[in-house]
């Protein structure tokens, strides 16, 4: 699928649009902050599209779309949570308070919000450390998603390793050209391209299979093609949930749906987005675009991913289900489907859709890693809170180190990893930060000790669960084998239950119990935090 002329034309049109909007945006207003300084409202769609473009990446479309091709349409529960928690709860409840408290405390990063709310440099430094060390898992997932699509689109020109390097170079150029600042109009354009690309993908997919009901019926009818190995784990067909309590059910429900669905609330790069708007009015209006956007992104990816099995089985060129064609690598399924089922022009447009999705997410991830290292960890812990001219330099170092670790992980991580790595990071963030973050916004009685204890509990339980209980990770990490001569200390079903199901409730209970038993923060500080609420 290589048509150099068509590719050049599509890329040129895209670059022209980006350059024009960048110039137009530069002349008119630089970014959301200029609007805020001037006391003006941004366009209702812009905040939501920029949030959506940061939230959704190649991880959701390529990684989780591939997981849907393996597990089936039950994954739509994740889309429901993406909208219900990721938009409704996040915007209406968390977003409005995050914006006000962030401004009241002059907090500019997620760890800084927690640190200033709890008057604790340690809280800020620890949160920065967790983000800096573990976010590369997520940024590598986004990188791998982009590289898998490039590799499949240009099979004669690129292999996976070259594709990883090319994407890393694109991201470096983008970041150093100032892309990290997120110019409003280019952000909105990237979001709009993603929306149109996914809409076309959905319509063409259903049209190719004879309509909505016919496509679903065809998918139901091929349940007997489920590979034996998956059937043994509880797979009952692509239009059915896995058998209740089976290993596949636990993975789908606890790791994929709950881990990612809840974890979105505590994504540092998303939480700070709310601070860049002027009033709750913009957040209210953003809910409209946000809800539709997420439905069109993840909903379409999971539906198309599942239905790709019918396409591949019916097509005489393949004659097999998706998973068999990619030798079990779920990360390759969406690229393979789009490259074969869609016309060439659409493949190139979709490639730009994916690169747009990946770049907006990657740049915000590297920004979050850089500030976590420079502003939160180094300044608060090593410089003991004294602002320094070194902070900017250290933030830049943090970004560079983040890019480097991401690329190394891109080469080293195993196949079928995109969704798993994303879910691990989201789950860890939820267990470590959610009680402290929710307490910060909603409970005046939450204490500094309660926040620290809760963050520690969530982090440590998650770590121990991965090292000694959840078999997939404990086996790969090998410490359990080394110490106890067995891959896991637990038995089924605990070996397939995601840490979030244990760590988050523990972290929540610890937050409440310790806060009730320890000294409250000064009343005037609490009043300053909750001013204008």
């Amino acid at each position, binding site marked *: 699928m290589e048509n150099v002329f068509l590719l050049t034309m599509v890329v040129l049109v895209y670059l022209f649009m980006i350059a024009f909007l960048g110039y137009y945006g530069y002349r008119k207003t630089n970014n959301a902050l200029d609007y805020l300084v001037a*006391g003006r409202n941004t366009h209702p769609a812009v905040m939501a599209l920029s949030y959506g473009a940061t939230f959704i990446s190649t991880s959701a479309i390529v990684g989780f779309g591939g997981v849907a091709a393996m597990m089936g*349409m039950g994954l739509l529960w994740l889309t429901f949570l993406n909208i219900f928690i990721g938009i409704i709860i996040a915007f209406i409840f968390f977003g409005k308070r995050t914006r006000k408290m962030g401004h009241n405390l002059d907090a500019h990063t997620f760890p800084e919000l927690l640190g200033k709310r709890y008057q604790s440099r340690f809280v800020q430094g620890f949160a920065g450390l967790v983000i800096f060390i573990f976010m590369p898992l997520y940024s590598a997932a986004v990188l791998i998603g982009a590289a898998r699509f490039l590799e499949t689109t240009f099979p004669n020109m690129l292999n996976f390793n070259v594709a990883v390097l090319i994407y890393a170079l694109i991201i470096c150029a983008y970041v150093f050209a100032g892309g990290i600042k997120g110019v409003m109009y280019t952000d909105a354009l990237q979001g709009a391209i993603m929306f149109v690309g996914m809409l076309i993908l959905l319509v063409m997919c259903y049209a190719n299979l004879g309509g909505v009901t016919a496509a679903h019926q065809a998918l139901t009818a091929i349940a007997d093609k489920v590979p034996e190995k998956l059937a043994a784990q509880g797979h009952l067909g692509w239009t*059915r*949930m896995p058998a209740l309590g089976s290993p596949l059910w636990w993975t789908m429900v606890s790791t994929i749906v709950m881990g990612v669905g809840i974890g979105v609330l505590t994504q540092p790069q998303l939480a700070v987005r709310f601070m860049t708007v002027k*009033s709750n009015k913009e*957040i*209210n209006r953003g*809910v409209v*675009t946000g*809800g539709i956007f997420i439905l069109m992104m993840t909903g379409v990816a999971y539906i198309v991913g599942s239905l790709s099995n019918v396409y591949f089985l019916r097509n005489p060129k393949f004659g097999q289900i998706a998973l068999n064609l990619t030798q079990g690598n779920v990360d390759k399924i969406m690229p393979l489907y789009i490259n074969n089922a869609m016309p060439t022009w659409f493949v190139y447009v979709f490639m730009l859709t994916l690169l747009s999705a990946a770049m907006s997410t990657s740049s915000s991830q590297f920004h979050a890693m850089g500030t976590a290292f420079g502003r939160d960890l180094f300044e608060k812990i090593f410089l003991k809170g004294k602002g320094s001219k070194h902070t900017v330099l250290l933030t830049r170092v943090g970004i560079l180190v983040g890019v480097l670790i991401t690329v190394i992980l891109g080469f080293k991580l195993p196949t079928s990893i995109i969704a798993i790595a994303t879910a691990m990071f989201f789950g860890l963030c939820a267990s470590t930060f959610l009680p402290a973050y929710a307490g910060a916004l909603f409970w005046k009685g939450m204490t500094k000790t309660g926040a620290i204890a809760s963050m520690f509990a969530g982090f440590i339980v998650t770590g121990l669960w991965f090292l000694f209980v959840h078999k997939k990770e404990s086996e790969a990490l090998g410490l359990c084998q080394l110490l106890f001569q067995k891959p896991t200390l637990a038995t089924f079903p605990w070996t397939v239950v995601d840490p979030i199901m244990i760590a988050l409730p523990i972290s929540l209970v610890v937050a409440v119990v310790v806060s009730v038993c320890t000294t409250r923060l000064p009343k005037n500080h609490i009043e300053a935090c909750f001013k204008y609420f």
Partner: protein
Amino acid sequence: MLGIDDPQVWLAYLACILSALFCVVYGIMNWNKGDEPLHAEDKKWAQDEKAAEEQL
């Protein structure tokens, strides 16, 4: 429903569409609500953020 037999799956399909619809209805009903004056804290925050970005 929609060619899907398992209620746990078609419910998910439906829940996705209904939750997106809720977003549309909520946004429209609150379209003009939530306007607030710009406080000194908001302005200071934006200026500090802009300065930090420019330095970076």
